[in-house]
């Protein structure tokens, strides 16, 4: 299988945000360093809500007890660790473009966990996967300067690859932020230049369109209020450790993160943005799209 051109954020753009320093993220994320929306159903600590989110994706992807599972955009490896530690998975492979995340995972020496600094578009596994999870990465699979057609085609390339890697009936559990009561024109220049460069959000209709005739959507949740709560919890923790954070990354960066987390909470609270959790099942004999 040949590599595709990566349609989304470059490695440099990803590293701009995620490689600011593991010690900095360690100050305000939960112990597992999970940097995506938690699942708060019946939980009142960030730690428990993040584990519930990871377990949700393990169940929805059908990963439990499988041999080979892929995590696209694996962060600091919390899901990979959970897969091999409690879900009985033999081999969990993670893809990230952030070198500090990869180094952190490699340092843990978790048996059965393998991490690669690689985009999904360059990934060429020797064997297929039994299940795929992707959480908080899809937001980096398109860029603001792409045409609507290019954006959909980039997403479709991603779904095509996942389709190729899964067995008949195999599932992809996907979590992503989305435009809801807003559109591309509302993407804040502050976020585009200072927080998440070279990134764009999908609309639900774009995900549905790009995965059509490759996957069927089995379940869908919009948990935007869960992300408002997660963002506010992260901000509260960051402010509690502000002095240490400033010593690590400087006052300007801390102010930037404080502002972004606060603005995010508003966006999810008011419904400007959504938080989608989708279970997609591979179609075995996809018809050609016309």
């Amino acid at each position: 299988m040949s590599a595709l051109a990566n349609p989304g954020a470059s490695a440099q753009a990803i590293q701009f945000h995620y490689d600011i320093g593991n010690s900095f993220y360690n100050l305000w994320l939960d112990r597992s360093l999970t940097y995506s929306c938690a699942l708060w159903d019946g939980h009142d600590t960030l730690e428990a809500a993040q584990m519930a989110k990871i377990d949700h994706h393990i169940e929805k992807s059908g990963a439990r007890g499988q041999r080979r599972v892929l995590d696209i955009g694996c962060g600091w490896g919390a899901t990979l660790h959970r897969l091999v530690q409690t879900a009985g998975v033999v081999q969990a492979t993670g893809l990230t473009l952030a070198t500090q995340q990869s180094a952190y995972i490699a340092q843990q020496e978790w048996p059965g966990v393998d991490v690669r600094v690689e985009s999904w578009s360059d990934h060429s596994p020797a064997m297929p996967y039994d299940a795929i999870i992707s959480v908080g990465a899809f937001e980096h699979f398109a860029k603001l300067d792409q045409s609507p057609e290019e954006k959909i085609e980039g997403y479709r390339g991603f779904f095509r690859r996942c389709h190729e890697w899964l067995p008949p009936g195999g599932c992809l559990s996907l979590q992503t932020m989305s435009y809801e009561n807003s559109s591309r024109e509302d993407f804040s220049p502050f976020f585009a230049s200072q927080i998440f460069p070279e990134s764009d959000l999908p609309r639900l209709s774009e995900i549905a369109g790009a995965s059509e005739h490759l996957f069927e959507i089995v379940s869908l949740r919009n948990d935007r209020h869960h992300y408002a709560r997660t963002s506010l919890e992260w901000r509260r923790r960051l402010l509690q450790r502000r002095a240490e954070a400033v010593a690590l990354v400087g006052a300007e960066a801390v102010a930037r993160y404080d502002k972004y987390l606060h603005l995010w909470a508003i966006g999810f609270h008011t419904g400007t943005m959504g938080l989608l959790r989708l279970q997609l099942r591979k179609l075995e004999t996809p018809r050609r799209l016309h």
Partner: protein
Amino acid sequence: MSTQQQQDIENWLADLIGEILEMPPQEVDRTARFDRYGLDSVAAVSVSVALGEHLGRELDATVIYDYPTIRKLSQHLAETAKAAEAAAEAQR
């Protein structure tokens, strides 16, 4: 019913909004929605941080969207002040 504390918060917010909009505080309509004044999410963050510092308690900007006028927000904050003080005391 309006308490003294609610009045104080209302006056402080009317001063702040008046300053942002460059208009006298007595002309700020305390029952108008914040978004009618053109206050966007960045302004909501600034207002919540400044108000939190003024009241000596941590405020999330989302509260501005749940109580979207000066009057409603002041009433809510006055009503919850005691609980917030008790929580702050418990954290000490």
